[in-house]
């Protein structure tokens, strides 16, 4: 754990493995991307009228959007497309978009190279926005703690009913009922 935060080698996981781990929402995969890509994003944001907090913010958004695209099957492994470069491109694009919408004087127009750049750029537009992610997330956080826990264990950690029963100390049958009730509540919020 300690070493992977520091070592250069931590960025050398084969792309296919990294891709699969990202898809599973694996923490280590996010850590690897953070290490390999954040320095570039930070440099870019700092060079374009941003602060370190902005870089951090835009980077987290970018990772979520990347995960979402992988999850929806919009971004697939391709020869010659590195995940970290793609993430970095998402972040740069989003930062420019943000500057544009804030009507920043120095950077009012999108540089040409974004229009011309290789395939994949067209996808940047229909990626999920920060606001959309927040809207989804807010709905989830309107649920009670127990609902949040059960739903996360079942749908994100992919645990079985029996495992959830063990973790929560509930009966398996009540876990099932709770899960049903919680999902119904969540759906009503949409």
């Amino acid at each position, binding site marked *: *754990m*300690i*070493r*992977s*935060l*520091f*070592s250069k*080698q*931590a960025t*050398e*996981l*084969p792309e296919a*493995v990294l891709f699969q781990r990202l898809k*599973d*929402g694996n*923490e*280590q995969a*996010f*850590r*690897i991307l*953070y*290490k390999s890509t*954040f320095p570039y994003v930070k440099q870019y944001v700092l060079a374009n009228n941003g602060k370190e907090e902005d870089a*951090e913010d835009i*980077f*987290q958004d970018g*990772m*979520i959007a990347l*995960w*979402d695209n992988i*999850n929806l099957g919009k971004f697939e492994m391709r020869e010659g497309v590195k995940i970290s470069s793609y993430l970095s491109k998402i972040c740069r694009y989003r930062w420019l978009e943000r500057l544009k919408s804030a009507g920043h004087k120095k950077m009012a127009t999108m540089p040409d190279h974004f229009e011309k750049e290789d395939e994949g750029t067209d996808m940047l537009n229909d990626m999920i926005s920060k606001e959309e*992610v927040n809207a*989804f*997330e807010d*709905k*989830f*956080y309107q649920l009670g703690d127990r609902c*949040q826990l059960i*739903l*996360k264990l*079942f*749908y*994100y950690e*992919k*645990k*079985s009913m*029996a*495992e959830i029963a063990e973790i929560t100390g509930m009966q398996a049958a009540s876990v099932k009922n709770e899960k*049903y009730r919680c*999902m119904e509540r*969540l*759906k009503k919020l*949409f």
Partner: protein
Amino acid sequence: METHMDLFDQYIRGELSRVERENFERRLESDTEFRREFEQHKNAIRAIEFAAIKEKISKVSVEAQRSKMIGRKGLIAIAASIALLIGAYVYTINTVEPAANYENAFASIHFKDPGLPTLMGHESLSQEMNTMMTAYKQSKYQSALEMGEALLEKYPESDTLQYYLAMIHYEMGYHDKAEDLLTALESRETPIGQKSEWYLYLIDLKRGDCQAAMSGIKSIAKDKSHIFRIEAMDALDVLELTNCAQ
């Protein structure tokens, strides 16, 4: 309604048989109300996933910030003092229970092989293999074991099958059996061969043979093409704090 929710979840988790899955997909195409309900269900899951993913990502980012503040020197100092503490502890308990130390190391190094995706469209897996994999993922090892052994008679040549059968034994604590299966796979120059190697060293560790475990894990940590290289490096950090390192 309740039946639909279960059905949706089974479909998403890849727990339907081929026929059920095809029926499901056909119904999605023809029945608009069913499709609308399914979309709603997926939307709700997306909300759950976003919340979970965001937590993970911000944890990673907080970790990175913190480690930057402490700096490498500080961390080495902390690690050194932990090592001292553990060393003192080991020294006092060593004569009583030497294995306790490795048990803890094992517990923090070990992770379960997540298994293969069982979602629809994974044509290379037979339906039976899919069912076995689902049982394995849900930690229903006894039934996974029965299915796996029956399957092995049918497909004795399948590395994937042998490997997951080994994982089932391993998770159940049948280390000898797991070791036999993994030893046969270890020399393969495939991800399965590499994974087998890793779990063999974990079995060594579990048995308290920490010298063997440590030298094996070291060799993985040096191998740039090894899929568990990072895990091996992390494991070495843990092992260095035990008296294995002496």
